[in-house]
């Protein structure tokens, strides 16, 4: 009698042994496709859209500048600022910053440095052009305005 009872007790659980594998797959996908965030961005970044995008080939040669309104307006005011690494800098400090970034590269590649500017939509051209002028002085002429892909009709 007891034997029959045991047979009737079928398991009603959903097998979850494959779940970790699925999650691990997702995990590996994210690990491979992402890079660790290096700096905390303290300015607003509403990146404009464009259609004619170009891609950077050598990521090691790229240095980033962030321009936009500070997130903490009570502390830094609402005027757009330039952020390099983790600090706000003035346009005149850009030359110094570029030279520091160049020092990180190999000597033969220093002239190929590319500056990627992540500029907020609402930032004014005046500030951005001041930075461009300093970049010309610092002989870092390769420039990229980071934009998002606009959907083409």
């Amino acid at each position: 009698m007891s034997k029959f009872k045991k047979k009737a007790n079928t398991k009603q659980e959903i097998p979850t042994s494959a779940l970790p594998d699925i999650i691990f797959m997702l995990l590996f996908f994210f690990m491979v496709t992402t890079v660790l965030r290096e700096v905390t961005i303290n300015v607003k970044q509403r990146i404009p859209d464009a259609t004619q995008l170009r891609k950077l080939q050598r990521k090691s040669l790229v240095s980033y500048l962030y321009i936009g309104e500070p997130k903490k307006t009570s502390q830094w005011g609402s005027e757009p600022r330039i952020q390099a690494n983790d600090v706000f800098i003035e346009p005149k400090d850009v030359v110094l910053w570029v030279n520091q970034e160049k020092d990180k590269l190999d000597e033969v590649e220093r002239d190929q440095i590319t500056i990627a500017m992540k500029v907020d939509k609402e930032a004014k051209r005046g500030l951005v052009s001041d930075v461009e002028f300093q970049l010309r002085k610092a002989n870092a002429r390769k420039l990229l305005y980071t934009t998002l892909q606009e959907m083409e009709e």
Partner: protein
Amino acid sequence: MARNKQRDNPEINSSSMADIAFLLLIFFLVTTTIANDRGLSLLLPPDPDTMEQMDIKIPERNIFKIQVNSADKLLVEGEPLTDVAAIKSMIKEFVLNNGRNPELSDTPKDAIVSFKTDRGTSQEMFIEVLDQVQGAYYDMYAERVGVTNKQWRDIANDLSDPENKRLYDKGRGLKDGKVEFPMNISIAEPSKIGG
């Protein structure tokens, strides 16, 4: 009693494995950003201090003027324009004129697109216009080598491939070290007028 226990399948409870993996997954989701290294590429002119000051007279017909004021209003060749997308076809007509229309450029080589903004112009407007200007040139290059605009940009992105380099030079008309079909975009220093 002891016999019964031995008959059970010795399994390790792996139900919490999913939780551990989830935890790791969430950690990576939070700490990482998908790298966005795409945008409008530009080559700035050399340092103004080292450049020789020269007054070069460029005929009016060879300059395509785009002006934007601080209210993001467009002025193209002296005429107000509301539709930014119209710039693309205008530039193509201007560059590929080859001396036919006396109002437009002599040759693609001489054609210059001059883009002047105000200090108060927003970056959004600047990008929008620059996108159209570069798009016009990429379209023309692509047409010269018989590829699509997207293919042309892919070619220009990777010049280490000899075939790409060949097509790139052909599109830009490289002859004896000189480019016959240069992308002459002059971005002038913004005016301080405002208003």
